[in-house]
Each structure stands twice: as C-alpha cells, then as structure tokens.
C-alpha cells in the first residue's frame, strides 16, 4: 500500500491552500485527490468578480483566484490525482479511492485533511406542493450550465431564495437574455451579501420580495408558472396574498450543506448546527490526525476566509505528522495532553469554529469564526473567560449572511489556569 504523510480529500480552494501551507511547513509527502477533471473546485464555475479582496488586495474572478493557488501547487510540485473519487476513509486513515487508470486503490495517510466542500440543498428538502415538471434547477446547477457548458436553462425565470448564488445567477441570466421576474425570500432578510443585492438585482430592476415563498408550481411536463405568497412570522403562507407568475424556469438558492458522508463514515463527530465536523483549535476532528477546512467544515461566503482557514489546517497537519515522527522515535505514541476548554456559543451566536481550544497548542492569536442567528443592529460581540468579560466589541450590523470572527490571545488564556469555559455571545448593551 502506498503511503503519504498528508492526503487531502478535495482539490477546491480549501484543499489547494491546505496543500501549499503544509508543504511550506516542511512536509513533502502530500497527495491531493480530486474527483473532477481539474483543480479549483466550485470556483471554476463562479466567473464573476469579487474574489480575493482580502488575500490578494485585488478583485479576481473565481477561476483566476483558483488559478493563483493551482500555480503554487504546481510550482511546489505537490502531487495530485484528478478524476479520482474517494470512496471511503477508515478511522485509522486508510483512504480508498477509485479512478479509471488505477482502478480501486488504497493509500495509508499519516494525516488526512477533509476539504470536500459543500453541496446545495435540493428541492426535496423544501416541500413545495405540485408536480415535478422540468425547469426546476438549483442555482448552482444553472451556474454550471450557463458558465461551463454555455447553455441557458430557460427564458422566463423566478428565483426562490436570496443566497449569493441565486443573486449572482439573477444577473447572469439577465445578461444572457433571460427575463428574471422576481427573487423571493422566505426570511425577512436576505441571506446574500449586500453588494450582490445592489449589483445583481437593483442594477437590473429585479424585485426582491422578502417574507415570500413559492406555494404552487404549475405545469406537468415543463414549469408553466408559479404562485408566490407572503408568509407570517412563523413562515406560514398568508391567505389572500397570492400572486401568480408565468415562467419556464424556477431556480432554487436555498442554502448549502457541507458534504460529510465520508467524514460521518469514518466516525468523525459532526455538529448539528453546521453539519460539519466538530473541531479543536488545530481544526482537528475528534479523530487524531484528521483535519477539516473550507465548506466541508462550515459554509463560507468569502473564499478568502476559506484559504486562510485551510492554510491553518495545512500547517497543523504538517506539525502533527512531524510530531508523530518524533513521538515514534521517543517510543511514546499518544499526543501530548494539554488542557482543552469548550467554547460556548449562546445568545444569538449559533456556533463557533473551532468549538474547543487546547490552550497549550493554540496559536498566539487564534481566530474563532461564527455566525449569528438573526439581524442585530448596534449590538456587541462579547467574549467571556468564565465570568470575566475580555472582549466587548461594538458591531453596527450583524446578519446571518455574513460570517463574523473574534481573535483570542494565547497569553490571555494562559493567564486563566483554571479556565472552565469560553463564552461567545451577542449583547444588546
């Protein structure tokens, strides 16, 4: 069986950045496994600009952003296999994969980095009554059809859900000659970035109807029309508010879920909030030497943060294999203990990544990312070490659509040797 120090599952921006950083941290034996015909992941179909403002200080398109990392992977001569589907990972890190040249094969990994990204929620999860006619696409599928295959899926379009991909596709299909009539959003706020609402909807006079949903789909063979209705606070349609639209296409942009079949299969503990692995300060899962980053860990809206997070995972995986080597030389086989403190996400904070921190092993400045559960205006983000508030930062606006972060200092945590819990919350005053 072939052996690599680090095997990375997925060659999207997370996998690429993790690979580059692991290599730069001194680990040479790295393999990326990617099921698609090229590296770059979902970015290859995101042809619009707006990527990389944080990382490269310029606005790139998705393929250009991916291109920068692919170049680095090639320059650093990191090995990768395309057209290769990972089928299974065992809890002792044997990766089973398949492609047409090697057939089914196994690789033993010193460390595994999970970077499989996410997939879109489908209509099944949505529960719209009516037939299942042709003409209903997820926004991401439509994005692939238009941008990669040059095929316009329809001419008269209604979009359900105001996530970024739906907003981007409203503009893209308009430019390609389709008539996008309306974007309906179940929630009273949009899940997308404000700049996308302005540049993708307002620029083209496409209305955004908040607190609205699709209550009926008409047509048997092909979509012929849909009915929208307003919803009340509980998300129930309000009788008498129905409006009919004629359309041949309905795009669904109703959210993304991390792709964690493989992780679940190998016994990685998953969070009920994010559907991604529960990780510690090193982005390591409950299985020693198995790390996660990018959209497989929690859904990101900015790829820059994916790259940053993945670079940390790569560094930590490299450190893990290097330490494992020296532990073997010393004849001890367990990771150094240290003290682990849980991070509690309460009062409006839905989750944190990481969700536990080993104060010995954390970096000097540890980034903790989170999302809030509603729209908050003029509130504070607070961090408590047990009862003591160590951070109280004013935030003019926070919304579920934009990821938030706080930074924890290692020296500050070390000053609390009996620390039991770290709490991150939203406070009104």
């Amino acid at each position: 069986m072939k052996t690599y120090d680090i095997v990375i599952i997925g060659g999207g921006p997370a996998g690429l950045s993790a690979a580059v950083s692991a290599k730069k941290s001194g680990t040479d034996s790295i393999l990326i496994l990617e099921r698609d015909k090229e590296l770059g992941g979902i970015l290859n179909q995101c042809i619009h600009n707006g990527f990389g403002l944080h990382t490269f200080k310029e606005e790139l398109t998705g393929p250009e952003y991916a291109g920068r990392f692919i170049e680095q992977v090639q320059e650093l001569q990191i090995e990768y296999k395309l057209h290769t589907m990972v089928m299974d990972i065992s809890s002792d890190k044997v990766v089973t994969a398949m492609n047409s040249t090697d057939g089914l094969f196994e690789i033993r990994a010193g460390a595994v980095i999970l970077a499989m990204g996410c997939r879109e929620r489908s209509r099944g999860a949505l529960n719209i009554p009516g037939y299942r006619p042709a003409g209903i696409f997820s926004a991401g599928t439509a994005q692939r059809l238009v941008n990669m295959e040059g095929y316009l899926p329809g001419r008269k379009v209604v979009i359900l859900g105001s996530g970024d991909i739906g907003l981007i596709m409203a503009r893209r299909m308009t430019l390609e000659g389709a008539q996008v009539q309306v974007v309906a959003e179940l929630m009273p706020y949009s899940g997308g970035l404000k700049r996308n609402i302005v540049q993708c909807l307002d620029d083209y006079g496409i209305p955004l109807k908040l607190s609205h949903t699709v209550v009926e789909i008409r047509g048997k063979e092909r979509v012929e029309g849909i009915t929208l209705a307003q919803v009340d606070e509980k998300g129930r349609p309000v009788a008498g508010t129905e409006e009919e639209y004629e359309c041949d296409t309905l795009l669904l942009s109703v959210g993304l879920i991390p792709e964690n079949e493989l992780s679940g299969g190998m016994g990685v503990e998953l969070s009920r909030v994010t559907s991604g692995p529960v990780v510690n300060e090193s982005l390591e899962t409950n299985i020693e030497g198995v790390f996660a980053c990018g959209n497989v860990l929690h859904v990101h809206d900015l790829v820059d943060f994916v790259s940053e997070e993945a670079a940390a995972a790569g560094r930590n995986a490299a450190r893990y294999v290097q330490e494992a080597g020296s532990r073997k030389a010393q004849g001890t086989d367990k990771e150094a203990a240290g003290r682990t403190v849980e991070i509690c996400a309460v009062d409006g904070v839905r989750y944190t990544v990481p969700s536990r921190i080993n104060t010995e092993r954390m970096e000097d400045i540890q980034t903790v990312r989170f999302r809030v559960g509603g729209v908050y205006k003029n509130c504070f983000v607070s961090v408590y070490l047990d009862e003591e508030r160590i951070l109280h930062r004013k935030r003019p606006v926070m919304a579920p659509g934009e990821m938030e972060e706080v930074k924890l200092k290692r020296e500050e945590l070390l000053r609390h040797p009996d620390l039991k819990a770290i709490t991150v919350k939203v406070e009104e005053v």
Partner: protein
Amino acid sequence: MGKRELICIGCPMGCPVTVEMEGDEIVSVSGNTCPRGDAYARKEVTNPTRIVTSTVKVEGGLVEMISVKTKEDIPKDKIFDCVRALKGVTVKAPVHIGDVILADVAGTGVDVVATRNA
C-alpha cells in the same frame, strides 16, 4: 429637485443614502454613516461603472467555454452592449489568463480578457 435613493455597498452596514440633485448637480448627500458612503453615492449618480464578466466559446480545449472579464470597469449603461459584442465570439485554445479576447469592447476603450486557461 430630483432625488436618488441608493444603498451604499462600502461595508455590511448597507446605509440607505439619499442624493439630492439639481439637474446634473449634486446638492446634498445624506444617510451615509461615513465618508466612503458619500464618495460612493457621488460616483454612483454621476458615473456608475461595473466590471462585466461573461463567457465565450473555446475550440480545441479541455472545456467548452472560457470565462472572461472587462479588464477595468466600464460605464454601467454599456453592460448590455459589452455582453452583446461577446455573443458569437469564439477563440482557439491555447488561451491563458490575461489574454485579450476582444479589444476596446463596445467603444469603451477597455479590453475583455480571459480569466481562465484552456
């Protein structure tokens, strides 16, 4: 006196900004929380510009289509002309990121360049 209601996209605050106009003259900008909102609103009502991204067909490559963009932002009212000018453009592989696909698109003086390799 004319009025334009905008949403500033400078940061996630998304301030609603109102610009009062006297013909082509800006009389006042209000609603912004910081100076960036003022600058954004002035540009937006006098000379709004955007980067345009699209795709063109490629022959002899690994993929069917390559993505392209205007190298710089172009006036907003030229967006559709730009997209129309790109309809029917076909390029031959190999193509590299940054290659000019269509020079001086729609009389804007701005080139359309490739954003992926093929």
